[in-house]
C-alpha cells in the first residue's frame, strides 16, 4: 500500500517495486530481479562484497551517516565466535517514516540485503529489531521470512550452496533510546535499553559480545542494488563521498507530504517546491530541519540554497540525519516547537547519565515557563547555557540530540522568546507605593 503518490522527480532504485500488485510477496519480488544480487554474492569473495559496498559510498541511513563498507570491514571475520546481523528498525526519530514504507511494500528487499551482509562477514543468524508500534510490519516480515524459507533463500544449505542463515523478527516495546545501536543490543538481550560504553563497537563486540553488523533498514535495503548495478555506478547516483539515493520523508507545512526517493545532493528548493508541491497555503518557510528533530534547526533563508547531502548539511551547521525533513512556515510558534521537541527528549531520556537526565528535565521546565509567558530574559540564556553544557557530555547521542535543536532555536529565534515574555509582561507597581509586593 502506498501512502502518497510518487513524484516524477524521484529516482527509484530502492522503491522500484512499490506500487506493483502484491509487491510484498516473494513471487512479485522474484519476477522483478529479486534475490539476483544475493545469488551473485554467492560467487563473490567476502572482500569483494565489502569492496563493492565501499565503492558505492553508501553511508548509514539511520542518521549518523557512517560509511557502511568501512563498518562491515571492522567486523573480525576470522573470529571463532558466531557473527550476527542485526537490523535496526526501531525507527523513532520524529519526522522519520521511511523504514515503515520500505518494509510494508518490499520486505524481501530487506531480507536480501541482510543475506548479502551475512555473506560478507560469515554470519549464520540475524535479527530484525522492529519498534513495538509497528506490530503489523512484524506480521508482514514474518510472512515474508516464511516465504523465503519455503523457497530456500533462508535456512540450511541455501540454494544448495552450503550456506546457512536464519532470520528472526524481534519486537521492541516503545523506547526511542533503543534506536541507538548499543542500547538496541541491550534491549535485544532482554534488558533495559541503556547504552553501552564504546569502544568496543558492535562490529567487534555486539550481540552476546559477538561480532555484529548492525545497520538501519534502508542501509541493508540499498545493498542488493549496489551489487547489481556495481558500487561505482550506484555511487554516481549521488554526490562525491555520499552515493546513491535517500528516502526522504517530507513532513510539516508542505502541500504534498510523503516519502520520496531522491538522489543525494538534491536541491532543497526543488524538493520543497516541485516534489513537495510548494509550501502549504503559499506561506514563507520560517524553519527547516533536514533529518529528524535531533538536527540543528536552520532558518528558511539558510536552507533554500542548500542541497540534501551529508557534507552540504554539515557545512551549514546541521546534519542530513535520518531523512525526516520537517518544514515549518511563518506562522509556526518556535517556542512551542522547541518545547515539544524537548518534551520528547525528556520523556525518552533513559536516565542513565546525569547531563541528559537532568539537562532535558530542566530545559523542559524552563521552556514550559517561557511558552506560558512567565519566563524571564535570564531563562532564555539559561536554556542555551544548559543545552551547550549537555553537548558531548553524555554516553550516547541522545543528549546531543536534545541539545542541538534547542541551542539552535534559542540562537536563531531568540526574538520570539523575547516577544513571548513581553506579550504577557505584567506591570508590577513600584515597591514604594505597594509595600506588600515582593519583587
Amino acid at each position: 500500500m502506498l501512502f502518497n503518490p510518487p513524484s516524477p522527480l524521484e529516482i527509484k532504485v530502492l522503491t522500484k517495486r512499490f506500487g506493483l500488485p502484491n509487491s510484498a510477496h516473494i513471487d512479485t519480488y522474484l519476477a522483478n530481479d529479486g534475490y539476483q544480487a544475493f545469488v551473485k554474492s554467492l560467487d563473490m569473495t567476502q572482500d569483494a562484497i565489502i569492496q563493492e559496498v565501499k565503492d558505492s559510498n553508501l553511508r548509514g541511513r539511520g542518521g549518523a551517516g557512517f560509511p557502511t563498507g568501512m563498518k562491515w570491514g571492522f567486523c573480525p571475520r576470522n573470529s571463532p565466535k558466531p557473527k550476527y546481523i542485526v537490523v535496526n528498525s526501531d525507527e523513532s526519530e520524529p519526522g522519520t517514516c521511511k523504514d515503515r514504507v520500505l518494509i510494508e511494500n518490499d520486505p524481501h528487499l530487506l531480507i536480501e540485503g541482510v543475506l548479502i551482509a551475512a555473506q560478507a562477514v560469515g554470519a549464520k543468524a540475524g535479527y530484525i529489531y522492529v519498534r513495538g508500534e509497528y506490530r503489523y510490519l512484524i506480521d508482514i516480515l514474518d510472512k515474508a521470512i516464511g516465504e523465503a524459507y519455503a523457497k530456500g533463500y533462508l535456512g540450511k544449505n541455501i540454494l544448495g550452496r552450503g550456506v546457512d542463515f536464519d532470520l528472526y523478527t524481534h519486537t521492541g516495546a516503545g523506547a526511542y533510546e533503543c534506536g541507538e545501536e548499543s542500547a538496541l543490543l541491550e534491549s535485544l538481550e532482554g534488558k533495559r535499553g541503556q547504552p553501552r560504553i564504546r569502544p568496543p563497537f558492535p562490529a567487534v563486540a555486539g550481540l552476546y559480545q559477538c561480532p555484529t553488523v548492525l545497520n538501519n533498514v534502508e542501509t541493508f535495503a540499498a545493498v542488493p542494488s549496489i551489487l547489481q548495478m556495481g558500487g561505482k555506478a550506484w555511487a554516481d547516483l549521488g554526490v562525491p563521498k555520499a552515493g546513491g539515493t535517500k528516502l526522504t520523508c517530507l513532513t510539516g507545512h508542505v502541500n504534498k507530504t510523503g516519502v520520496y526517493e531522491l538522489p543525494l545532493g538534491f536541491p532543497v528548493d526543488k524538493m520543497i517546491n516541485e516534489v513537495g508541491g510548494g509550501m502549504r497555503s503559499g506561506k514563507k518557510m520560517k524553519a527547516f530541519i533536514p533529518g529528524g528533530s535531533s538536527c540543528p534547526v536552520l532558518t528558511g533563508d539558510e536552507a533554500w540554497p542548500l542541497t540534501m547531502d551529508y557534507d552540504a548539511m554539515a557545512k551549514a551547521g546541521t546534519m542530513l540525519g535520518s531523512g525526516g525533513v520537517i518544514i515549518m512556515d511563518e506562522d509556526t510558534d518556535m517556542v512551542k516547537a522547541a518545547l515539544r521537541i524537548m518534551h520528547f527528549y525528556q520523556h525518552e531520556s533513559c536516565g542513565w547519565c546525569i547531563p541528559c537526565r537532568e539537562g532535558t528535565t530542566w530545559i523542559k521546565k524552563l521552556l514550559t515557563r517561557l511558552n506560558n509567558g512567565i519566563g524571564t530574559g535570564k531563562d532564555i540564556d539559561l536554556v542555551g547555557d544548559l543545552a551547550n553544557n549537555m553537548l558531548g557530555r553524555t554516553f550516547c547521542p541522545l543528549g546531543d540530540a536534545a541539545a542541538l535543536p534547542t541551542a539552535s532555536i534559542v540562537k536563531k529565534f531568540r526574538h520570539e522568546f523575547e516577544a513571548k515574555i513581553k506579550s504577557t509582561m505584567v506591570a508590577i507597581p513600584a515597591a514604594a507605593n505597594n509595600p506588600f509586593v515582593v519583587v
Partner: protein
Amino acid sequence: MTFSPQLEAKLEKLINSYPAGRRKSALIPMLMFTQDEVGSVTPELVNEVAKRIGIPPVQVDEVVTYYSMLHKKPMGKYHVQVCTNISCLLWDADKLYEHACHKLGLGHKEVSPDGLISLEEVECMGACSWAPAVQVNYDFHHHVTAEKFDEIIEALKKTKTQ
C-alpha cells in the same frame, strides 16, 4: 498461568529464536505478546514470564518499568493513542488531542469506566508524513481531523453494543 494455544505456539517459536543459553532475549517480545492477551502486565504475569525464561521476577520488573508500551495497569479494550510530536504538531495535533480529551472525557492514560476506551498522548509513532496520526491498539489512522476522530470513536463504541 496458561495462554491460548495460538499464543503458546507463538511463545514456543519465540524462545527457540535465540541461541542456547540466551533465553533472556525473548523477554521483551514475550511481555508484549502476553500483555496483548492478559490486558496488562500483572504481578502473576511477571512471575510467569520470569519462570518461563528462568530469571528472577525482579529482572522482569526492571524491564517492564522501562518500556512505555508495557502497562502495569490495564488500558481500555481500545487504546487510543494520539501523537503530538513535532511533525504532527505542525498539523495541529495538539488541538486534535484536546478534542480527543473532550470527546472521550478522558485525560492522558485514563480509561473509560466501562473499560472500552483509553486515551494516551504518545510520542512519534512513525506516521510523520501523514500527520496528524492516531493509533488504536496497533492500527494506524492517518490525516485525522476532529470529524474523522469522532467517526473512529463511534465505530469503536458500536462494537460494544453488538
